[in-house]
């Protein structure tokens, strides 16, 4: 990325006094790699809400693709269906009143809207716009189980209000641990079982760490702690040792080596603990295999009853074998290693989102943290299981600009590190310009334009996009009077005929009232739905 091109200016004494600072070059988005595989393919998504006032046509034929490692911004005004799109993809639309009516959501070839047509029947009511929906709850439940196998692990979600997305009665550590145990449980148990607290390299590593603490160099302590983690063959123990050492240093305690030996001894498993871990691992394996079966069912559109029966048998046997560990007091003692490991993993996850004091924060409860901090915890939870797709619904709207800058930077970095595809739902066009590779503009339940970020902001084609961009007050282009779009967002129970934007459009033509404009391609990957343009229709 080229740096900023600063025009030469006469330096004044004030500028000389400008200090060096932690700066990050904010580049526009990187060009999306066309070769990257499509991880999410949404086709013709249509979602209605059946209310007493009539059918709210919240989404009408929404289609887009999300590639691996790409950030797609979904922008639009309040009530245009941005969040409904996100909820429809993960089947989290509150039902009743909402229902995904038709469409396809392909996540790596698996249709997340599997069994949609069997779930409910629509009976037209006698009065005009009304419809009666008859649901089959058995099928709804089956479908939810299948989509649920993708949520969290494959598709992670971040919600707008971090304070409401967290459970107030569990500590941060408990909540992050839960996610890790659910999705990375098998690896976690394997790690605990493979730990070698009595390995030959352990004692020398402890001595080395103790010496590093005395020397007082933080980088050295971190390095030695990591070595200790490697020596016990459990990386999170390195994290634990580092914080133990740091605590010992700050309190001036001379017993670092003793504390560390004590911590190491906690890694030695009793026979009961070992047996419990094996039984737990078996159950986690079964759950994981079941998820794989669910995904395969959604991919092939067929139930795999034989697999389910086999898994049910194995689950029953595993539960019988694991019966002693269902007794609370036994379970509490036996599950200690796994709980501790998960807690340290969550500290590690919080470190990853640049929380300054992760141990302290992880012990805290949601009400003790600020909004920015909680949002970072949410991101840590979402990224702990390295999802392929991250859907963020207005992740920075509730935050201050300086905190927003931190969070956006973090999301960008995560995308490069893990290769997650991000669907960023927001109304803030400026945030999208900075973070997204491609942008989809929504208006009244339809996508009106999709383009690369540079094309969209450089040459907006749809009149709505043009109006939206002109109405933002710009920091870099001061002007006293702002351009506005006349009128307001339409009522979606009685949406305007034809193009839904025609009542507010300055270029409205007679045809706009009559039919919905098709999606046409204007240049490389620039898709627009407007009669003003006559490019070739998109392949859908």
């Amino acid at each position, binding site marked *: 990325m*080229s*740096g*900023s*091109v*600063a*025009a030469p200016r006469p330096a004044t004494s*004030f*500028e*000389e*006094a*400008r200090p*060096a*600072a*932690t*700066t*990050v*070059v*904010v*580049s*526009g*988005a990187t060009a999306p790699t066309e070769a990257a595989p499509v991880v999410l393919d949404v086709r013709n998504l249509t979602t209605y809400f059946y209310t007493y006032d009539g059918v709210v046509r919240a989404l009408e034929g929404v289609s887009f693709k999300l590639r691996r490692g790409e950030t797609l911004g979904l922008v639009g*005004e*309040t009530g245009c269906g941005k969040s409904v799109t996100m909820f429809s993809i993960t089947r989290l639309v509150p039902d009743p009143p909402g229902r995904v009516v038709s469409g396809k959501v392909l996540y790596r070839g698996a249709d997340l809207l599997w069994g949609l047509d069997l779930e409910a029947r629509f009976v037209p009511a006698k009065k005009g716009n009304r419809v009666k929906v008859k649901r089959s709850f058995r099928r709804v439940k089956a479908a939810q189980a299948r989509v649920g196998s993708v949520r969290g692990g494959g598709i992670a979600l971040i919600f707008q209000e971090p304070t409401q997305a967290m459970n107030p009665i569990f500590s941060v550590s408990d909540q992050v641990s839960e996610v890790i145990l659910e999705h990375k449980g098998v690896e976690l148990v394997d790690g605990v079982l493979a730990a070698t607290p009595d390995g030959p390299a352990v004692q020398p590593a402890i001595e080395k760490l103790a010496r590093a603490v005395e020397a007082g160099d933080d980088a050295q302590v971190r390095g030695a702690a990591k070595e200790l983690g490697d020596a016990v063959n459990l990386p999170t123990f390195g994290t634990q040792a580092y914080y133990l050492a740091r605590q010992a240093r700050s309190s001036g305690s001379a017993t670092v080596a003793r504390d560390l030996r004590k911590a190491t001894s906690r890694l030695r498993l009793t026979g009961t603990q070992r047996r419990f871990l094996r039984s737990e691992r078996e159950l986690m394996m079964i759950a994981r295999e079941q998820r794989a079966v669910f995904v395969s069912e959604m991919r092939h559109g067929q139930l795999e009853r034989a697999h389910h029966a086999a898994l049910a048998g194995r689950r029953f046997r595993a539960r019988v074998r694991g019966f002693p560990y269902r007794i609370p007091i036994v379970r509490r003692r036996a599950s200690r290693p796994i709980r501790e490991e998960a807690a340290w993993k969550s500290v590690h996850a919080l470190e990853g989102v*640049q929380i*300054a004091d992760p141990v302290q924060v992880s012990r805290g409860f949601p009400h003790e943290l600020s909004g*920015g*901090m909680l949002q970072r915890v949410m991101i840590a939870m979402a990224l702990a299981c390295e999802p392929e797709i991250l859907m963020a619904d207005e992740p920075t709207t509730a935050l*201050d*600009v*300086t*905190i*927003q*800058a*931190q969070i956006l*930077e973090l999301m960008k970095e995560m995308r490069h590190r893990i290769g997650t595809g991000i669907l960023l739902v927001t109304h*803030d*066009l*400026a*945030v999208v*310009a*900075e973070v997204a590779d491609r942008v989809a503009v929504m208006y009244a339940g339809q996508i009106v334009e999709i383009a690369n970020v*540079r094309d969209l*902001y*450089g040459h907006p084609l749809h009149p709505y996009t043009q109006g*939206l961009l002109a*109405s*933002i*007050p*710009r*920091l*870099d282009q*001061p*002007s*006293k*009077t*702002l*351009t*506005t*779009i006349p009128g*307001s967002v339409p009522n979606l129970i009685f949406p305007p005929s034809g193009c839904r934007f025609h009542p507010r459009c300055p270029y409205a033509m007679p045809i706009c009232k009559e039919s919905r404009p098709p999606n046409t391609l204007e240049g490389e990957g620039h898709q627009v739905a407007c009669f003003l343009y006559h490019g070739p229709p998109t392949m859908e």
Partner: protein
Amino acid sequence: MPDDAIGLPEVGAGGSHIGPVLLSARNLRKFFPIRGGLLSSHIGDVRAVDGVSFSIHEGETVGLVGESGCGKTTVGRLLLRLIEPTSGHTFYHAPPEVIDRVERAYGEIGPYASKEDGESNKWSPSAQAALKELDEIADQYSIYRKNHRAMKSLRGKLQIVFQDPFSSLEPRMMVREVIAEPLEIQKVGTHNERMARVQELLGEVGLSPEHAYRFPHEFSGGQRQRICIARALALRPEFIVLDEPTSALDVSVQAQVLNILETLQREHQLSYLFISHHLSVIRAVSDRVVVMYLGRVVEHTVTDELFSRPLHPYTQALLSAIPIPDPFLHRERIILSGDVPSPAYPPSGCHFHTRCPAVMPVCSRVDPPLAEVRPGHWVACHLYPPPSTSPASGGAEAPTSEGMALSTSVEGEPLSATPSTPLTTSTSTP
């Protein structure tokens, strides 16, 4: 303290429409007590506003910017006397010579002296005299010394529009009742005259006459905010506090509301205090900007100056943190670490030193005063010694950095590229 030269027409951005001083706040402080422990004793204070001074001229828009919890809203409420200050005054329609006397008096006694201090004998006679003079001026001009009746008539001149148009309108009242309520309270006109005024107001804010007979829930956010503006205008005020009036609205609607406010200001010679955390909006509407951090003013100057030459490190970080809707721009961004500290336990010295990228040893000890480092540009920062004290070494003092990973900019120049430079000049093509 920022004197009133700042907002005068020759310095002011808009120029011609700005009149004499309307309100001037001096050393406003508002502490909210924290109670706890045994018998709910007073165990500390949330220092929401800690020594804020600025003036608002007739026909002028002053922008008040800062992050959440920095005391912006509290300042707005103090200016309207919706809450009583812990100390300090807001002078209403005070002539310039009176403000000069106030400045001299505060110079003599320090900003936060109270009446009780003056009565004790440890004070010099000149300080006691200054305190007495201040007291007399306050009795005449300060809005906090007005009695109930005077305050009631003053309320008609000082109005407010709140942030959330959904909770600031009574759901059981029709729009005409909502807008006519201030007129009824102040007993203005007959019923028919009031209804005529309601219709006139609805026209002014771009609503149609039949809207008067609807209830608030029938309107969208933008329309409700227009109703709130109409209600604020009902008594023909001189000054309106706009407390984040557009942050609950969409951008296209926000533009409509901002344009209405602009038109109304021109027609009625209104003064606005525009409180917002959204710097792009502030730039679009205001003539002068006051930047607050943790209850204090850190920078105060005319809008163009602030955006082209921000001096305080906090303002620079704030400006660079704002996303710009233009993917073609490349700029350097200063990312502040950490959160805003709690105003109940503010950091020592300069409140910003815990997050400042340019922190020096002196910052944690000495609280920098708000000083005029350029004509009409007031900054509270140790990086900019006031020209009068050390004119030669202005800025020669090399800032040291502590505990921060520092990097120089791409070109290797010592970051003279303030965030404003890339904003205005660099549009590098892909």
